[in-house]
């Protein structure tokens, strides 16, 4: 929990490398490229001591993890999380690491949580040098009810440690709902009540265990407030995931990404897509949904964003806000990257020639 989320540096994980960006004034430039030509599925930005992690998915050669002690100047391959031997006859997806999809620092120094496809949560106490599967979650019988969303296997894409309570962590799973531990991973509770799955038969729509929250973020200054971009809607919780309330956006509620203002729990941004079956910006015109009143109303922001023939999709981790709440970055599957310096009210192009972008993070 010591991430130094400076607002003048950001990291863009792409299909063909990790790009470090620096900002001067409102101008962002590529400062360095690491792992050129290799897919980087996720990163953990530099912590206060300069240590950071980058997760690669090399395809033929599998998932790899690299660590840096000098803020990305040099890298060393470290052990990637590995699943234990699969018991004969075990149901569910193969116990094989398919992707590192989320990385977050824990409270204790050196603690890192890693969310994966096919749905296992891993934990490291030595900043990624070694990992152990969180068996208390993997062993839950409900896990066999999870299924893939976007990928064939279920995956953990969101990890939200509670900033004030060590031992409390919330995770989001596509498609496996929202799970919370309050005892440092010893036990878990399913907390997706109020979410609704339009892709299920009516009798199963309210089942919390098969919800598909595409992305969940927690407000650092008001940690009881959580925002979720779900497969078929936008939800908000004001009671630390005890309950979730669906919100109506004016244009489209389909999308993947969400970001919440670090100091204002009522302010959040979304990157809407047209629909599940039409994964482009609505009417091929890119916009950002912004609310400043807890989702009571939404503003559709188009300034600086392409309004004709835009087929960009912003993935789950493709929208980020800096600690200052003013600077945002948004990047797409077609290699476009936009920045905002005024809290998302207007955007400007940083690049239109990057590789497809998987994740953007400040820090």
């Amino acid at each position, binding site marked *: 929990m010591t991430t130094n989320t400076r607002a003048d540096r950001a990291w863009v994980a792409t299909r063909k490398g990790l790009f470090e960006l620096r900002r001067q004034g409102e101008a962002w430039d590529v400062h360095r490229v690491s792992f050129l030509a290799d897919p980087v599925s996720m990163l953990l930005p530099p912590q206060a001591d300069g240590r950071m992690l980058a997760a690669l998915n*090399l*395809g*033929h*050669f*599998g998932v*790899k993890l690299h660590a840096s002690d000098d803020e990305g100047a040099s890298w060393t*391959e470290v052990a*990637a999380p*590995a*699943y234990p*031997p*699969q018991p004969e006859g075990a149901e569910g997806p*193969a*116990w*094989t*690491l398919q992707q590192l999809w989320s990385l977050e620092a824990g409270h204790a120094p050196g603690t890192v949580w890693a969310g994966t496809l096919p749905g296992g949560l891993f934990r490291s106490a030595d900043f990624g040098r070694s990992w152990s599967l969180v068996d208390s979650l993997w062993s839950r019988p409900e896990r066999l009810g999870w299924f893939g969303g976007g990928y064939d296997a279920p995956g953990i894409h969101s990890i939200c440690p509670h900033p004030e309570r060590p031992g409390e962590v919330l995770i989001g799973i596509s498609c496996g709902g929202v799970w919370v531990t309050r005892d440092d991973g010893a036990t878990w509770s399913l907390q997706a009540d109020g979410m609704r799955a339009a892709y299920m038969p009516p009798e199963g729509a309210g089942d919390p265990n098969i919800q598909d929250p595409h992305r969940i973020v927690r407000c650092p200054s008001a940690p009881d407030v959580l925002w979720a971009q779900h497969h078929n809607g936008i939800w908000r919780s004001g009671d630390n995931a005890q309950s979730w309330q669906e919100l109506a956006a004016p244009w489209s509620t389909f999308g993947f990404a969400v970001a919440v203002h670090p100091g204002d729990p009522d302010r959040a941004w979304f990157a809407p897509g047209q629909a599940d079956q039409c994964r482009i910006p609505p009417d091929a015109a890119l916009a950002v949904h912004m609310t400043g009143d807890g989702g009571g109303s939404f503003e559709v922001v188009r300034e600086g964003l392409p309004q004709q023939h835009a087929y960009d999709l912003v993935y789950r981790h493709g929208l980020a806000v800096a600690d200052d709440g003013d600077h945002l970055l948004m990047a797409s599957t077609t290699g476009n990257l936009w920045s905002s310096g005024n809290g998302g009210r207007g955007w400007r192009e940083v690049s239109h020639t990057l590789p497809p972008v998987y994740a953007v993070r400040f820090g």
Partner: protein
Amino acid sequence: MPQIAFTPHLRRFLDVPEVTSRAGTLRAALDDAFARNPQLRGYLLDDQGRLRPNMVVFVDGRRSADRVALADPLRPDSRVYVLQALSGG
């Protein structure tokens, strides 16, 4: 003794010189290679010790079909090539 050669694509990530092994099976020969370079294991095998889906092994010109046990017998003069399937964009 059997010789094992690896795809040059691996050289981007690892040092992969040819390995000479006294092993009598493909699995044992790969284990010899992993003993010399433990990092190599994760590049060729998945968490459960199976050959990764897009890797392919040829033993004396024949494609190995056993991706789980890797039990292909090796002769003293066997040549093993560990290669990658072509894919991507």
